[in-house]
């Protein structure tokens, strides 16, 4: 009996040690509780299940360890001969059943709440594509792409970068800005493959599926920046398309909307001016390289060699060299190529940018056609399209 008592005392000490350790290090070991009502409830449910499971583990594994110590051959040379007990078996079928029902009830309630996206204050269409997000505010006539802040090229990802940048792989050029305390409905879809939009602190994760629209929602009480990542394997740069949501107060949000609208008008004006000019070769090449490195190099590589056959080479490609293919070249950049990863850039880039990048592709890496494509050519192409 003394040994038995010592054993239990030891076990209790061990369990309490492990638990207190876990409690101190909660921030690193556990799920983040998040900031929304639903995320907090999900966290509570998560903790409840963890404790129930821990309890069951202590009982079951405790019995096993006890048995391994006291029912070994040296301690118990003659084994018992029983091998059946309907009562016991009935009990341990019923008890898990009851525990599961107890867990299911709050889960059902929370699930129904989380899936109720009705009566939103505003709606945002979230479109995933390889490998960026596009946000469109239904009520505000604002839309923009949100890319990883660092261009998606191998050499940009290193241990030093990770150590120097606290938001390594979790930072974008344009955040999704949302007002606090408003019920925001997200309409999720995708252009190419399935992506999944996840922000842990909002407890929102929904797949973005090409050709279908999914619905989810959030209501964030506290301003702040919340970061997440794409969680459905979507190709080569799947790990490099973060989600960043910046929640601001309602007045800040209104200011932001006004500012975005001004920017949009200014950008349209600048684009029109740029398109009206006739561009010199070195200016086209300079802008072309910037655009290429940001938008094209992730697949076609910085040296234009691509990763054939999935991502064809542009260096030496007939389309980028032969003069009679110039329209086909513009077409594929503007409209993309159905059934491949080649996206349509007609709405993502200005006419001047498209002209510059096409020019760049026709003259970089020894393609040297000497041909210039002007913004006016792009306008003409779009007009005749």
């Amino acid at each position: 009996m003394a040994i038995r008592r010592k054993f239990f005392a030891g076990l209790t000490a061990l369990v309490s040690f492990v638990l207190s350790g876990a409690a101190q290090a909660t921030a690193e070991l556990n799920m983040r509780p998040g900031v929304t009502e639903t995320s907090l409830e999900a966290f509570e449910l998560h903790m409840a299940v963890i404790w129930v499971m821990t309890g069951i583990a202590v009982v079951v594994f405790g019995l096993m360890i006890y048995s391994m110590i006291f029912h070994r051959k040296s301690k118990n040379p003659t084994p018992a001969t029983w091998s059946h007990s309907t009562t016991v078996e009935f009990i341990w079928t019923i008890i898990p059943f009851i525990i599961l029902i107890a867990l299911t009830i709050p889960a059902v309630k929370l699930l129904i709440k989380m899936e109720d996206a009705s009566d939103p204050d505003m709606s945002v269409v979230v479109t995933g594509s390889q490998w960026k997000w596009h946000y469109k505010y239904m009520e505000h006539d604002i839309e923009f792409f949100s890319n990883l802040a660092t261009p998606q090229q191998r050499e940009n990802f290193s241990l030093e970068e990770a150590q120097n940048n606290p938001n390594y792989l979790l930072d974008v050029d344009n955040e999704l800005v949302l007002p606090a305390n408003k019920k925001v409905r997200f309409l999720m879809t995708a252009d190419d493959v399935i992506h999944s939009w996840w922000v842990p602190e909002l407890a929102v994760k929904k797949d973005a599926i090409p050709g279908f629209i999914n619905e989810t929602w959030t209501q964030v009480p506290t301003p702040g920046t919340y970061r997440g990542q794409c969680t459905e394997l979507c190709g080569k740069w799947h790990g490099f398309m973060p989600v960043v949501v910046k929640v601001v107060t309602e007045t800040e949000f209104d200011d932001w909307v006004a500012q975005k609208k001004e920017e949009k008008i200014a950008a349209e004006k600048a684009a029109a001016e740029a398109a009206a000019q006739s561009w010199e070769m070195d200016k086209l090449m300079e802008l072309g390289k910037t655009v290429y490195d940001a938008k094209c190099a992730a697949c076609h590589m910085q040296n234009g060699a691509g990763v054939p056959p999935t991502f064809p080479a542009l260096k030496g490609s007939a389309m980028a060299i032969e003069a009679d293919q110039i329209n086909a070249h513009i077409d594929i950049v503007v409209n993309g190529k159905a059934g491949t990863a080649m996206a349509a850039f007609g709405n993502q880039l200005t006419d001047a940018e498209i002209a510059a990048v096409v020019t760049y592709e026709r003259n970089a890496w020894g393609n040297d056609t000497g041909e210039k494509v002007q913004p006016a050519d792009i306008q003409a192409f779009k007009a005749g399209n």
Partner: protein
Amino acid sequence: MADHHPTGLKRWLFTTNHKDIGSMYLWFSFVMFIIGGAMAMVIRAELYQPGLQFVDPNFFNSMTTMHGLIMVFGAVMPSMVGLANWLIPMQIGAPDMALPRMNNWSFWILPFAFTLLLSSLFMDGGAPNFGWTFYAPLSTTYGPPSTDFFILGVHMMGISSIMGAINVIVTVFNMRAPGMTLMKMPLFVWTWVITAFLLIMVMPVLAGAVTMMLTDRHFGTSFFDAAGGGDPVLFQHIFWFFGHPEVYIMILPAFGVASEIIPAFARKKLFGYSSMVYATASIALLSFVVWAHHMFTVGMPVAGELFFMIATMLIAVPTGVKVFNWVATMWQGSMTFETPMLFAIAFVILFTIGGFSGVMLAMAPVDFQYHDTYFVVAHFHYVLFPGAIFGTTAAVYYWLPKWTGKMYNEKLGKLHFWLSMIFVNLTFFPMHFSGLAGMPRRIPDYNMMFADFNQLASIGAFGLGLTQILFLAILIKTIWGKAEKSSDKPWDGATGLEWEQLPCPAPYHTFDTPPKVS
């Protein structure tokens, strides 16, 4: 009667002997285990620290894909079929499998299937890179050209599995020795019969999925393409209708192994034999109605999510019964802890940990936070490595004397166990934490906040990988090297026809005349 015992290469090519075929299956699965393991080492090396160090993200995706496919279809499933071949005829008192030529064929398809699959690594555009779950349209419209080799490979594996399953069912229902009633069969036979039914039900579904992929890719159909009126989510429904029973296909035979080994070393009859059988059958039946719990984030109607959540949680009941029965078998037994018993006990404990995280994942509102993170990776590796693979390892140690007539080195066996036990937990336990902290699965690079746990997991993985080389060394030493001869009954608590009526090693042909079953 003298043993008819052909020799040389032809013995292995043309054999219809269940023991030869069983050995080939087991060795084949070990080779695949090493290849799939090497790929895991590439993955863990890349994830050892943040930044892209060794491989291109696309190749990383190929590695996670091929690692999964090879481990599931090449290592775990064939190892279970190997055990079935060796053990089922001996355990039910049959002279061989019912369909020996088909048995030969179902094995010999596999090397070709996997050559086809592995050859994709050397093709333009790289190996399949869309995950072992090959979700459309990433695997159809966007898949690399080698996807077609993958499709053909999966078809061949499927044919092999279906034939293996038919063989088990026909053997068990027709070739039992007189007196070996269904409810007297060893649990390993029971779990395998149920597994075989699962295989026959779902492998054709998988074949349908990959055929639809093929026609979507090349013949103008749009099963999974919304632009043509199809639905990418349809793919996931079909895949997981196969995929969830597949999970049990991999684990049920291991349940059977544990139900043989634990009573043997506790020197006490298995507790609740009939409830074990019914629990296994319930798990198998439930596995057909829970598939969409893998898809809680695809945007199902709430009613659908509720159904799949509740049905999934129900699985915990029969699974719990099995675990309680194993514990009750140990209770007041007279246990010794040789290597097979150590692996079997670790199987029960660690599989149960995988079961706990399984219940957590079943709860849809919280699953939104776990889904597609490392928490899921931790969960299924707990049920597959210390689950299915520890189960097979325990079986190999337990029946090795029966197969070879020689005894493995107990000290080395225990060393193999303890190293595996430490490293398997070091590898997979930290993944729970990186998942909860928010690390998505299938990413080659990550933020510093996930660095510590990834480093631990990588160290664990390298250790776990090296430890399995020790296993290979133990096997070689036992089979071909200097090893102690085994007595006919090396485990005093072992029961069943193979231990009670056959010598060690079992002769090439056994039970030419049916044994008497008491």
